[in-house]
């Protein structure tokens, strides 16, 4: 797999060389992305960034900095005004939203099958893949429940299972853990990290939570207020698998401090 060359225009932090090669996971190249909405609002300004296949990247930034728009451009839901997002044409991408976005009239297992259904996966295969994904996220035994019978954390697990069952090369996560309580969030972060290490997809996570970004990622991208620019790219050197105890180490606190400091700098740029 060809590694895209780092672009000189932004922070020179390159994809980490020690990242295990993950067959199937897609690299992404964001080339001079800008987005101006019809209302005249400039959401993004010249985003240049390369993501290696299998990397976990988090994007943090103030509210309204266009990070969700960036994610939607990568997803193909929004067209950039200028620039391009290069990724393999045949790559399967799955999107996980802040609200679990489940179909309330479908059972848990039928919800887990939804994306495969839309992508034309044959029915018998859908069933086994959904069951497997539900088991991975700890929802085995709830197949016949309905979403309203699940807790917020379980709904998010189902949303993750639905995406995982698609066996995506690229996982796009738009603040998926913002709406769950803090204890559940920690547990889900650990699970998400394990799932990523196991499944080997490329992950792009948008979050407000600096700790979450550092805990999960290879690199954290800090964006400025609108129009969104990349202020800084911060490498996270901790090896995987990461234990929950990592969160209470001095090195972790130092790094989250760095990210927070970079976020605060936005006014001086």
């Amino acid at each position, binding site marked *: 797999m060809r590694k895209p060359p780092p672009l000189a225009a932004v922070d020179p932090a390159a994809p980490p060389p020690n990242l295990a090669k993950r067959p199937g996971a897609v690299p992404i190249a964001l080339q001079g992305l800008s987005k101006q909405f019809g209302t005249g609002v400039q959401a993004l300004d010249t985003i240049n960034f390369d993501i290696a296949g299998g990397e976990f990247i988090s994007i943090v930034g103030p509210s309204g900095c266009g990070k969700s728009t960036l994610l939607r451009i990568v997803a193909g839901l929004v067209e950039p005004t200028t620039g391009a997002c290069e990724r393999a044409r045949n790559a399967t991408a799955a999107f996980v*939203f802040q609200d679990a976005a489940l179909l309330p009239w479908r059972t848990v297992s039928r919800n887990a099958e939804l994306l495969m259904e839309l992508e034309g996966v044959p029915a018998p295969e859908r069933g086994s893949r959904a069951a497997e994904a539900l088991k991975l996220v700890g929802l085995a035994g709830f197949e016949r429940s309905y979403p309203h019978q699940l807790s917020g954390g379980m709904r998010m697990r189902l949303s993750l299972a639905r995406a995982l069952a698609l066996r995506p090369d690229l996982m796009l996560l738009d603040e998926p853990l913002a709406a769950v309580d803090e204890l559940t969030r920690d547990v889900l972060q650990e699970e998400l990290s394990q799932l990523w290490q196991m499944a080997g997809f490329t992950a792009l996570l948008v979050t407000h939570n600096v700790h979450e970004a550092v805990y999960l990622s290879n690199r954290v991208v800090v964006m400025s207020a609108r129009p969104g620019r990349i202020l800084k790219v911060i490498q996270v050197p901790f090896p995987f698998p990461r234990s929950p105890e990592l969160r209470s180490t001095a090195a972790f606190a130092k790094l989250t401090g760095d990210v927070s400091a970079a976020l605060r700098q936005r006014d001086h740029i």
Partner: protein
Amino acid sequence: MAQTISLPQAGARAKSALSTALPPILVALLALSFWYLLSITVYAGKGYLLPGPREVADAFVENGATIMAATLTTLKEAMLGYLTAIGLGVLIAAILSQSRVLERSFYPYAVLLQTVPVVAIAPLIVLWFGYNDLSVIVISLIISLFPIINNTLLGLRSTSRTLVELFAMHHTSRIISFWKLRLPGALPSMMAGLKISAGLSVIGAIVGEFIIGSGNSQGGLGVQIIFAQGRMYTALLFAEVICATLLGFVFFSVVSLLGHFLLRHWHESAAD
């Protein structure tokens, strides 16, 4: 120990069931008594104005076959009008929901359909479709159509934006999105419209029968009501009005039950 706890609980449940059923039963008994008292005091000997409960019951028994036949005729007409309204209403809402321009162009006329008093256009309908069942069905259809269009359209438009994005991400066609996302999502709102129209369709059928009148003596409840009024047979008139009311109630209940069955797993409106 467990027994001493569970027994009062079972007793409490029976008590609560009684306390929900008792008040309406008491009201019914009171109303019947009041009606009876009126009929033997103020309206004594004026049964053509207010027949007593006994006379109405007698009228039921004496004209059982006629009333049954009339009820069945009205039921058939109302049901045909209602089912056509559902098919047509959902189809129109589905088409309007596909484009803002379409909706903006045609929705005002759908509203107009509701504001035209159906009693006023009924004679016109009869002029076009003749003095027969078809006119009655069409009038029932027109009166039940708007709530179905309106509520279905509301439901089809209120699909969650996130879900629309999710479906868009996987290149879902309009038709598949409609079947798998918009239509099931619109169901609760659609059922609300269907419930309103269930009662309306019976009203429409009876209004239609009023207009086509006693042209044929074997007509539905509306025809029989006019007929009984002409003969000053007020007890029969009462019996037929009660039947018409029950018919609307049964219609409504069947649709409510269907809605409950369809939505019980997932929507608050069907929660017990």
